[in-house]
């Protein structure tokens, strides 16, 4: 079967802006394959190039070497089959909730009435019915994430790229959002690449967890299938023995890298 997304031997090297002879390799020779309908989490210490990898998959960043294939076709330019949920605020502050959700349809030339009807539907689905007229600054952090989720999902992308989307939320809101994400995802099982530094979040959500080494020149150093039954509740599943077993195994691989990453940050 053709994988939904395949990063093949991707290397990303950045030249320093002040001194072009100084180079920094964020990711080296990384291969990551995501099957159709698979939920894959990528975990690793901070600064290990997780976001770089995701930007490559999104087509926002061209890799220095290697390539990306989407459903078997090489990717050039922005990945039109993917939706991207950013870590920081990405809503257009000058558009209200409804207009933010309709934006993608509008860019694709869908009629105004139809776009708005579908957007209202999606806002209800993420629990924001009645907030159509609010501007992003009038919403709480959790609500803005829901708007971003609706903004992405309304286009029905076949690949969801998520860059620590819930990391700025408090723990309760975060678990609520994780459960909602799983529920929305299970409705039509798209492929997901979920970036996080939180191993518990990664195990609770995913089918597979990929561990990246500490940067520079990160690469995958371990892959673990998560065989916890679905549907899952992200809060309850953490208490099951299998979860704890998986966590212990993966953490065993990750711990050393986290310490390395920490030591590097101290040096900078």
């Amino acid at each position, binding site marked *: 079967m053709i994988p939904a997304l395949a990063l093949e031997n991707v290397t990303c090297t950045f030249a320093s802006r002040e001194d072009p002879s100084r180079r920094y390799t964020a990711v080296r020779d990384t291969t990551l394959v995501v099957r159709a309908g698979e939920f894959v989490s990528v975990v690793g210490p901070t600064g290990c190039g997780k976001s770089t990898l995701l930007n490559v998959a999104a087509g926002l960043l061209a890799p220095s070497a290697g390539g990306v294939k989407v459903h078997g076709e090489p990717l050039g330019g922005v990945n039109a089959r993917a939706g991207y949920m950013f870590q920081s605020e990405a809503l257009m502050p000058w558009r209200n909730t409804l207009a933010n959700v309709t934006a993608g349809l*509008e860019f694709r030339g869908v009629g105004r009435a139809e776009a708005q009807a579908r957007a209202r539907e999606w806002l209800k689905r993420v629990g924001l019915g009645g907030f159509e007229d609010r501007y992003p600054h009038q919403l709480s952090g959790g609500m803005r994430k829901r708007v971003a989720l609706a903004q992405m999902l309304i286009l029905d992308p076949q690949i969801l790229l998520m860059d620590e989307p819930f990391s700025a939320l408090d723990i309760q809101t975060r678990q609520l959002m994780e459960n909602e994400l799983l529920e929305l995802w299970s409705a039509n099982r798209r492929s997901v690449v979920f970036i996080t530094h939180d191993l518990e979040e990664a195990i609770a959500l995913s089918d597979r967890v990929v561990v990246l080494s500490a940067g520079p020149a990160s690469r995958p150093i371990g892959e673990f299938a998560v065989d916890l039954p679905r549907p899952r509740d992200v809060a309850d599943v953490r208490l099951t023995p299998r979860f704890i077993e998986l966590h212990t195994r993966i953490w065993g691989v990750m711990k050393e890298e986290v310490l390395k990453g920490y030591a590097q940050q101290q040096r900078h």
Partner: protein
Amino acid sequence: MRSSNGTEGRARWRLRVYQAVLLALLLAAWYVLTSPTLLPPFYFSNPKQAAFLFGEPLEVAGRLWKWFASGEIYIHLWVTLVETLLAFAIGTILGVIFGLWLALSPTASAIFEPYITAANAMPRVILAPIFFIWFGLDIGSKVALGVTLVFFIVFFNVYQGVREVSPVVLANARMLGATRRQLLRHVYLPSAMSWVFASLHNSVGLAFVGAVVGEYLGSARGVGYLILQAEGVFDMNTVVAGVLLLTVFALILDGLVGLAERRLMVWQPRSGETERV
């Protein structure tokens, strides 16, 4: 919430009273100090000297009244306003277009950069004689002068605004499928608008400066022309009346810009706004 609004309203009301009192005091001081008969002359040897140098409030009010009652002011006011609004509109539109263009085209920006800096550093009021030759003594030369003043303010703000577009918002719009043109229309332009509005308050005043200075340097109509005429015969009351009239109209235009800003920029958080849910 309600009670805090009440306190806020009362505080604002008190502020307005203080402001009115200050105005009344200033007018009273002006009246007392310039009246030839009220106080014995303690600084000038001639009792009429103070009135000659600073005008007299009652005379100024009388002059303003006569202007409007006779209707002779309207044509001058109209000319000055048309010059101001034209300079304001043309300068703003050109500033937005060039600001967007240079901000989005690194090559053009690199080529033009030293020339823009030079043009901005030049004292542009000295261009007035050239504009008189090019556009004649009619409103054309005044509009041109105003445009050169307004353009750079708006231009630099748009340029800055476009460069400070959030890269994440931009990347998000691209992922949502925006073409280059849609990015311009739906991301760059709205993002630059908050900067443009900040600059419009400055530029509306400068559009007035361009019009009035232009009239002052050579014209047959306009409030600047009236002021120049009065100055020629040392009629300080008319000069002050003209200055007051211009100030009031500049304030009105600034208020209109503020109104448009509040209408169009509802999405911006105001300072101290805590409307979260």
